[in-house]
């Protein structure tokens, strides 16, 4: 009996000491209960889609002015005036006729891109009636929702008393005032979903990569808005950046789930792993001429394996940790599945079934976070955010870009650096820019100069950061260190 006990102890001891097992990356268990809260705006309302021309009546939204109430369509449209500045969504269909689109279609084995469902899903308003209205591009219904149920009541007084959530679920109206509902809709095209994706084949054919970051798109100087934001700066930009991070990551993770499920079902049209979910320039760089850029960062991925979705993952952690500062009362979300998913995607041939399962769990966690942010958005804020909030975010992002001792970059991948940079740029503008935070200007301009793609002759361009070697990365590290210093809390004791 005693020797049996000793034997048992020996076995347990050996198992515990790891003598039996290979060194494994510990993953959280994949069967713990998940949060169930979901934001509204992730499903498609099953109502009829009306064309933009139905909104553009002169007495409704087609008033014939610019930048005034009741002239939203006239402001938005590229053709209402000969004004050069318009909403780029209005030309989304027209771009399908240009030389680039024709060449892409040819390489994809398609005939006419303006007739292909693959293109029209994003480049027009899906399901619009009449069918000819696809020429309106990404029209009103694409962002405001199918109008069948609300076209006749949205101008009546009782519309204002209906909650945003009811507007969506019962009427199919996407409440743009709620940033979560707004961005969850943007990412269906700008990142992709189960019906729409820009994968590596399409990019190889010539389609630009989808590098969506909400505040960068929102504040693009060529984007003429047909609305005014209710929330003032800097609160708006801080919230918009945070929500944008969450929504983009959610869409990217759900797209991974969709792709993994297709691969697990052996769909011949679904390559696995799908390259467009990986960091582009980890592969797409010339090699052999210059120094190794990877050594500039402390993040070590397995050799030969690009990181998964560094673009949407890198700064999302900062958004998660600091969201109470943007949305008082919201607690930072528990995002346990995402690190597990990132590790699993670092395998050379990740099992699509495992990835699909884990991605689904990660999406559930992100949905709970988005639901909390959405509820906070639906409440009118009772007070403004403290004045130093953008600075706090910028400081956290600069720290995020650097290693713990700030002697090296955290991750030397271009996508990771760009994600941190764009966040800092958003906070710079939120703070008031050069007028209010002049010390930030030089480091940010320096970052932009290092990260942007090199110039070429007119008519040509680079779609990758050619020549972005170790020297350039060292300069990026120095700019982030400068930013870390100038964004430090002025009231904190040294």
């Amino acid at each position, binding site marked *: *009996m005693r020797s*049996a*006990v000793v*034997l*048992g102890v020996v*076995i*347990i001891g*050996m*198992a515990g000491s790891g*003598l*039996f*097992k*290979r*060194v*494994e990356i510990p993953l959280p268990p994949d069967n713990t209960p998940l949060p169930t809260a979901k934001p509204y705006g992730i499903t498609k309302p099953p109502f009829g889609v009306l064309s933009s021309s139905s909104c553009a009546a002169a007495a409704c939204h087609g008033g014939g002015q610019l930048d005034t109430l009741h002239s939203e369509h006239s402001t938005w449209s590229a053709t209402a005036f000969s004004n050069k500045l318009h909403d780029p969504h209005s030309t989304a269909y027209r771009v399908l006729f240009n030389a680039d689109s024709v*060449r892409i279609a*040819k*390489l*994809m084995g398609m005939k006419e891109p303006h007739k292909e469902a693959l293109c029209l899903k994003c480049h027009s308003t899906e399901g619009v009636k009449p069918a000819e209205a696809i020429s309106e591009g990404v029209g009103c219904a694409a962002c405001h929702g199918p109008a069948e149920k609300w076209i006749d009541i949205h101008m009546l007084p009782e519309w204002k008393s209906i909650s945003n959530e009811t507007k969506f679920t019962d009427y199919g109206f996407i409440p743009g005032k709620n940033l979560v509902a707004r961005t969850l809709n943007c990412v269906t095209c700008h990142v992709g979903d189960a019906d729409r994706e820009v994968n*590596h*084949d399409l990019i*190889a*054919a*010539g389609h630009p990569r989808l590098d969506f970051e909400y505040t960068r798109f929102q504040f693009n100087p060529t984007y003429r808005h047909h609305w005014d934001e209710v929330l003032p700066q800097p609160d708006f930009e801080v919230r918009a950046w945070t929500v944008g991070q969450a929504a983009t990551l959610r869409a990217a993770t759900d797209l991974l789930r969709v792709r993994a499920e297709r691969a697990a079902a052996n769909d*011949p049209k679904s*390559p*696995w792993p799908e*390259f467009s979910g990986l960091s582009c320039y980890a*592969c*797409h*760089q*010339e*090699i*052999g001429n210059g120094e*190794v850029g990877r050594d500039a960062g402390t993040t070590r991925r*397995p*050799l*030969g394996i690009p990181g998964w979705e560094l673009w949407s993952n890198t700064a999302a952690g900062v958004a998660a940790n600091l969201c109470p500062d943007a949305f008082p009362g919201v607690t930072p979300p528990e995002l346990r599945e995402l690190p597990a998913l990132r590790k699993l995607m670092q*395998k*050379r*041939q*990740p*099992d699509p079934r495992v990835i699909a399962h884990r991605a689904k769990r990660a999406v559930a966690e992100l949905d709970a976070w988005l639901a909390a942010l959405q509820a906070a958005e639906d409440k009118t804020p009772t007070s403004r955010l403290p004045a130093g909030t953008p600075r706090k975010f910028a400081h956290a992002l600069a720290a995020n870009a650097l290693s713990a001792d700030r002697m090296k970059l955290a991750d030397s991948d271009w996508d990771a650096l760009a994600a941190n940079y764009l966040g800092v740029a958003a906070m710079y503008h939120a703070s008031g820019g050069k007028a209010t935070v002049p010390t930030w200007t030089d480091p940010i301009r320096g970052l932009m100069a290092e990260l942007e793609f090199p110039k*070429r002759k007119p008519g*040509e*361009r*680079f*779609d*990758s950061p*050619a*020549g972005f070697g170790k020297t350039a990365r060292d300069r990026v590290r120095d700019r982030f260190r400068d930013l870390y210093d100038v964004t430090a809390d002025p009231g904190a004791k040294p």
Partner: protein
Amino acid sequence: MHDVHVLTLAALLYRPQTKHTMNAVPSRSFPAVLVITTLVAVTGVWFGLQSRSQGEVRLTGENPTPTGKPISHGTAIGNTGCMAAACHGGPAAETLAGKFSEHTWEGSGTCWNARDPHARAYSLLTDTPDRPVRATAKQIMERMHSTIPATEDVRCLACHSNPSLAAQGTSDPHIVSLRREGVGCESCHGNASGWLREHTTWKSDNHAEYASVGMTPLFDIGDRAMTCLGCHVGAPADPARGYAVRDMNHDMIAAGHPRLDFDFAEFHRELPKHWQEMEHPPTGAKPRGPAFEARMWLVGRVAQAETACKLLADRAERAKANDPRTPWPELAEFNCAACHHDLPEPWRSDAKDLGTRTLGALRWQTIWPVTESQEFAAIQPVLTIMQRARPAGFGTIGPVAHQSAKNLTEVRQNLVAMSDAEMVQKAQVGFPSAVSEHPGWDTAGQMLWGFAALDRAHVLNRPIAEFDTAFDAVRKREWATAKTALDKLFGKP
């Protein structure tokens, strides 16, 4: 190791009962026995599950355990066995001056010691490489998270010293000392223990005699090419010779190892010769004919394709066997520039550049002209299964690559045997068809090597100016200029 543990525990469990009969299990210790049996079973099952996990790459410093089987092709003696002053260590002044004769063999060792770059091979694994390197072995091993230095790792030793010594561990100082000779005499000529004394009396080049004692026949340029390619491209393990697998893969390149960019004829031309190059027909030795350079080149390219197919098949088999040192998919199978290019717009050539590949399918390695011309039918099955959006799995690739390698062996042997006139005709007719519409770095570089070799053989008469133009344009990656110059070189209208 794990099997032994489980068995030992099971044996420990099964102790004869001393006090009670064999039939009656004492109720007192029964629960304990049950618990322990369950523990053992669970451990065994869990461990079994671990072994079967697919697709996990574990880059470790652990060398594979040697099989301990005896090798039939002799053991290594070392360069000292060749270098006696009366054997191959004699004066080599003439040879070093480029004058070859029937006395060249007397000084081959001296010549090799003086000038051959293979002597440096082992030093590149140490902290004191004999020539400047961009990435040191230490840096490479660090990036691979290796727990052992390059001088002890079979992956490195297999090519950087005699391949038969690579898997023999580091405890024997004699073995370590032999490795320091780099890629020495026996690495190419075969381990000498079987023929050291005998070969001093041979007068003819008896192929069978060589093979039976383990001396590698190098006078047949096909066999010579395959010997070089074993390290310069890679090769499966050869248990008969005790050779470890030679596979320099994408993980090692990502860690900093230079990629293997080999051309048999060009490397051969640059190698300081320590022998007199002669033909060996039955009528007796005579100097090589003028078309020799062209044949070297063409045979070399076919042998390279053959070696690549054999390595691909071997990688597939190792991946199937879940070898932790074989990543799959192996990215080094593909053309580097298929992924590794900046994205200048417009950069994508039109649909013609894709050829039969689907969009997004990676180009398998360029071995011009074999992979670029329809004339070499033997390689086409490999190209078909590799150049797809989803290349075939390791189960399918193995047999296809094996078969292609076999067919290419036949092509190679025919090329070695055919007459000069026939071989030259093949070169003159075949190459213009393989000149690519859209030469990339590898294609253009290999075309230029080919042109240089054919020019040395005087089988293509083209003005040298076009060669310089093409070479410069390729170096600067000015593809339009390069294409025009290459077309002129190869006589395309």
